[in-house]
């Protein structure tokens, strides 16, 4: 492994929320890093602060303590672009205009914007729907637009907040395949949050396991399942072993989170 500064460096980040006069510690001194070109997955029970962490990385939320650093190798391109769980597309813009939204805001000229949009839509397989409005698309398609929008911005780091969680199982599997394919082509640094351990192992190079609230880094597991990867890896013994190993850890955290919900 080449020793360079990591692309994403999170040092002792804590996030505290004020809610109804009470303070809630969502993240507790999180430290992790992602290397350039790496696909990092973050898994944890509900309430472990996974999305919160992602929002901090995206700059949507300010951490209460700690430091976040993202290496900017290419000035002029945005540091991050996020794919939201609920797609968060602008309903009054066509698919194409949604994809170019970030570029518009940065003042990229029209010709270049349109070219990028065409490219990205082709990559996610939605060329035919460029002129459609979001409400005319299915959930899976809307999510693909969200991905295209993020990719179109050519960010240093791609952030994905459970992007496939709202899809049905079949569409989800197809989309996982799509993601693998797209990422194999573009090779960006990705931080991917998910509930599904299966998904994390399928997609990621490393898996970070967070504890129940307050979220701490429980452990980091390397995923040595080879690249390029396809859906068939799910049948391999290495995958099965890894799944079992990490799940026993995750299970404890999930149970702990549920107990807290019951008790609290």
């Amino acid at each position, binding site marked *: 492994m080449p020793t360079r500064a990591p692309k994403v460096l999170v040092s002792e980040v804590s996030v505290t929320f004020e809610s109804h006069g009470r303070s809630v510690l969502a993240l507790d001194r999180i430290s992790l890093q992602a290397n350039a070109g790496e696909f990092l997955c973050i898994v944890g029970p509900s309430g472990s602060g996974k999305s919160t962490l992602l929002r901090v990385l995206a*700059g949507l939320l300010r951490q209460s303590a700690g430091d976040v650093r993202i290496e900017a190798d290419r000035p002029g391109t945005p540091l991050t672009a996020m794919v939201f769980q*609920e797609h968060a*597309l602008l*309903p*009054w*813009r066509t698919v194409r205009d949604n994809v170019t939204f970030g570029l518009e*805001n940065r003042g990229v000229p029209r010709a270049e914007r349109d070219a990028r949009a065409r490219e990205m839509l082709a990559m996610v397989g939605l060329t035919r729907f460029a002129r459609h409005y*979001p409400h005319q698309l299915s959930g899976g398609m809307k999510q693909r637009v969200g991905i295209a*929008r993020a990719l179109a911005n050519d960010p240093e780091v791609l952030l994905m907040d459970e992007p496939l969680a709202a899809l049905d199982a079949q569409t989800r599997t197809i989309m996982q395949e799509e993601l693998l394919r797209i990422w194999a082509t573009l090779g960006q640094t990705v931080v991917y949050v998910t509930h599904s351990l299966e998904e994390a192992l399928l997609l990621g190079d490393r898996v970070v396991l967070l504890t129940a609230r307050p979220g701490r880094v429980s452990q980091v597991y390397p995923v040595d399942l080879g690249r390029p990867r396809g859906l068939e890896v799910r049948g391999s013994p290495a995958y099965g072993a890894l799944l079992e190993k990490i799940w026993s850890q995750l299970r404890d955290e999930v149970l702990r989170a549920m107990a807290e919900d019951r008790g609290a």
Partner: protein
Amino acid sequence: MRALGRWLAEHWIAVGSPIVLLVVWERASATGLLREAFFPRPSTIVAHLRQLAADGTLWGHAAATLARIGWAFALAAVLGVGIGLAMGLWRRLREGLDPVFAVIYPIPSVLFLPLVSFLVPPGEIALVVTTAVTSFFLIAFTTTHGVRQIDRLVVEAAVHYGARGWRLFATVLLPGALPFIFTGLRLGLGFALIVVVAVEIVSASRGLGALLWLSWQILKVEDMYATFFVIALLGAALSYGLAALRARLLPWVQDVAERR
């Protein structure tokens, strides 16, 4: 032609019943079954309508009413959308103005006429301003709500993708509020018609409301019906016309589907 035929077959009741009604009315009136003084024959009404149109009275009054509606609506729309947006964006302003609006709004529009006639020169301006008052509130309220109901997540995503300040307003907040603004404008326009007719009855010598009242006072019942019909046409044109415009202007809005 076939499409028309099909449409007629489906809607024969809707088309047929008014026709039947008119025919029955005509006969009943002619034979004295219905008191002709109260319910003149449709044919006579049409004749009077023709007359009013021919000698220009109708157009004169209609034009006066339309002009007042036009001015009042423009006034209400500009102020309403402007202040509505401001209230939607700045909480302080909203909290400050809300209680004031809340007290003024329920007052039936006609009652503003005296008030307004003290503030502005009596005559056209007073009528226009009175007509604009309730419409203004309607438009302001719906606009404010339109801004506030925009999905927070969408705004967040937009900010994340680089929209700030003016751009955020122009590309997110304004389009997001637009469906509601449009609804407010439609309501405001409809309301302007209601109020204008009422104030014309009270204190105008020209205008469809004035014509209606005048016809009543001199007991020209046929003219009353004719005027009423014209007012109804105007109301329909305004209300359904603007509704049709909606589909063009707001292509991304889904309508509540008809289930039955």
